[in-house]
């Protein structure tokens, strides 16, 4: 009896202490790389958060470009003064796995499940949802709507359209209009998208074997190879040459720039879902996540506050607000059901394809050496598309070099 009372008292005391602790004012820094065009919207979300949690003060700190933010995070790791929460790319934090504070275990039931399927693996370390997606974009098909009435729906149609629209309009022996364009050196994600659509992957599920040159990979690279004569292969921005390209695959976040370029070139820009591949209609998602750091200079209260902020950003109304203002895509399933989002899509028809594509998206693998694998992919994909090596030989080179990276 006495023991029960004691336990009860202790519980009350602890809860009380927890309640007091929860109300204790706490300040956290949020490092990000959002340009000044996005900053007011980010600030609005942070302000809303601080209204909802009056004891928490969040200071968003702009840290320059993504590359600068990465450099700053690395420096802060060395100096021991990381912030509570930061915007991060997957391959920045695979080396930092041991100092990440997992967000998933502190979520309410259903919250984690609400995240779009394609985004879960790239935020999950050893089976634990550790980071959460923040600003995400997806590869979609942009096309010259004056030339293409119905965008191609399959690989075969894509090939036919690309072939039929490639033309030497003034008859001087050089091509003036290309069916499509690729930026392989900067965007190996274009190849990875084809690979996924063919049912392939870089590695097998437990990362012990290279599978990129299995049958699906061969199908993907041969499809790319068949497009070479009709493809404007460039290392420049596609929007710099948009006038002579009939259709191209590019990130949804580039929409405003592609639209301006298309307007300047005097044609109507269309946006569609990617053509369906032999196996899927997948598309690669890119963009950053939010990570909370488990480091000595952050108190438990600060980490708790950071987790609350990350969860707040995931709320349907907030991810929708962010998406409508920034041009990135909402990251939870419930967001797509929200009336505010439906209204936005209705007012901006190009969003229809992006939304639908997003729900079929996939993300990069969390292998610690993914960065170098990506370098291999971009280098070889560039060589293949520029005809420096045959598609199949290039694919086998890729596989061999990735094999070496696996052994490292």
């Amino acid at each position, binding site marked *: 009896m006495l023991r029960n009372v004691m336990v009860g008292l202790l519980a009350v005391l602890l809860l009380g202490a927890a309640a007091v602790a929860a109300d204790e004012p706490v300040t956290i820094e949020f490092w990000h790389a959002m340009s000044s065009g996005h900053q007011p919207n980010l600030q609005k979300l942070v302000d809303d958060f601080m209204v909802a949690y009056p004891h928490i003060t969040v200071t968003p700190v*702009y840290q*320059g470009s993504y590359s*600068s933010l990465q450099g700053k995070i690395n420096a802060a790791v060395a*100096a021991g*003064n990381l912030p509570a929460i930061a915007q991060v790319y997957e391959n920045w934090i695979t080396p930092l796995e041991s100092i990440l504070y997992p967000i998933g275990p502190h979520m309410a039931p259903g919250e984690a499940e609400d995240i779009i399927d394609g985004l879960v693996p790239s935020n999950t370390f050893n089976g634990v949802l550790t980071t959460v997606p923040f600003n995400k974009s997806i590869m979609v098909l942009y096309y010259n709507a004056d030339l293409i009435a119905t965008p191609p729906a399959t690989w075969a149609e894509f090939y036919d359209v690309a072939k039929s629209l490639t033309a030497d309009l003034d008859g001087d022996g050089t091509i003036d209009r290309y069916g499509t364009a690729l930026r392989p050196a900067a965007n190996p994600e274009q190849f990875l998208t084809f690979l996924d659509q063919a049912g392939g992957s870089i590695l097998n599920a437990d990362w012990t074997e290279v599978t990129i040159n299995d049958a699906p990979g061969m199908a993907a690279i041969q499809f790319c190879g068949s497009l070479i004569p009709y493809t404007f292969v460039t290392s420049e921005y596609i929007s710099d040459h948009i*006038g002579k390209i009939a259709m191209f695959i590019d990130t949804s976040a*580039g929409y405003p*720039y592609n639209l301006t370029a298309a*307007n300047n070139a005097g044609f109507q820009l269309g946006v569609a879902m990617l053509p369906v591949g032999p196996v899927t209609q997948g598309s690669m998602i890119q963009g950053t996540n939010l990570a909370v750091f488990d480091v000595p200079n952050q108190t438990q209260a600060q980490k708790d506050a950071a987790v609350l902020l990350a969860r707040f950003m995931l709320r349907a109304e907030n991810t929708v607000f962010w998406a409508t203002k920034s041009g990135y895509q909402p990251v939870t399933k419930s967001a797509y059901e929200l009336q505010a989002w439906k209204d936005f899509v209705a007012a901006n028809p190009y969003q229809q394809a992006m939304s639908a594509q997003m729900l079929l998206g996939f993300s990069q693998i969390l292998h610690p050496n993914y960065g170098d694998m990506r370098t291999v992919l971009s280098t070889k994909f560039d060589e293949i598309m520029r005809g420096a090596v045959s598609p199949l030989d290039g694919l086998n080179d890729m596989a061999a070099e990735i094999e070496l990276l696996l052994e490292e």
Partner: protein
Amino acid sequence: MLTRSEAGQLARQRAYRVLLYFLMFLGCAIMLLPFFWMLTTSLKTEAQAMRMPPMWIPSKLHWENYILAWNRAPFGRYFFNSFFVSIASTVGEVFTTILAAYAFAKMRFFGKNALFAILLGTMMIPGEMLLIPNYVTLTRLGWLDRYEGLIIPWIVSVFGIFLLRQFFRAIPDELWDAARIDGCRRSRFLWRIVVPLSKPAIFTVGLFKFLGSWNAYQWVLLMTNSEKMRTIPVGLATFSSDIGTAYHLLMAASVMAIVPILVLFFFTQKQFIQGIARTGIK
């Protein structure tokens, strides 16, 4: 009366001068092209700024870009910081550089050539490699997000020491010999004779420093966390993202950032030009 051959020579000389003027203005035009582009782009709409081929003169001048750009970041504070940090590091640099350059130019000491080579060597390391250790050092010193961290690491410039050494070396040794016989101490000789003689050269070193400090970006971004410590280049960076750049606003802000430098150069170029060349003594 001119003889025929004299007249011919005069005509040739005139033609030669016309050619020289033509070359000079051609050169100027080529050099000014990006500056001109920056000016006109700062007055375009976003769509006009991206047009290819470019639109050189916008149909309507969008002066409001300057207001929009100014309001995108706390530029008032950034300008103050840029001025303060640039002036402070310039003053500090001039002081340390005079001392060091004098030692290299006019004194005999143990390990002089080796030390000079090492100093030059410091310019050969990619700056990126030094950033993380320096961040750790500043953290330990407690200089993160403080003016100390923005100024003190930059009050030495090997470039300046090298440049000033080239000038000091041209001052005749006889001057020091004479001064020494008169009982003049070395430090007095340096500050009372060498420095006044080399004023323009020192001014030059200072201008380069000011310019470098004014444009410093990576360091400022890394070593500060709050708006109240940041400088203009950080403000310029916020117009770009990984997807694209708001060129019309970026160029408006860039014009505002360049104007102070331009004013400085315009009003001091006589000093500056002489500074690079004057060896102090005629």
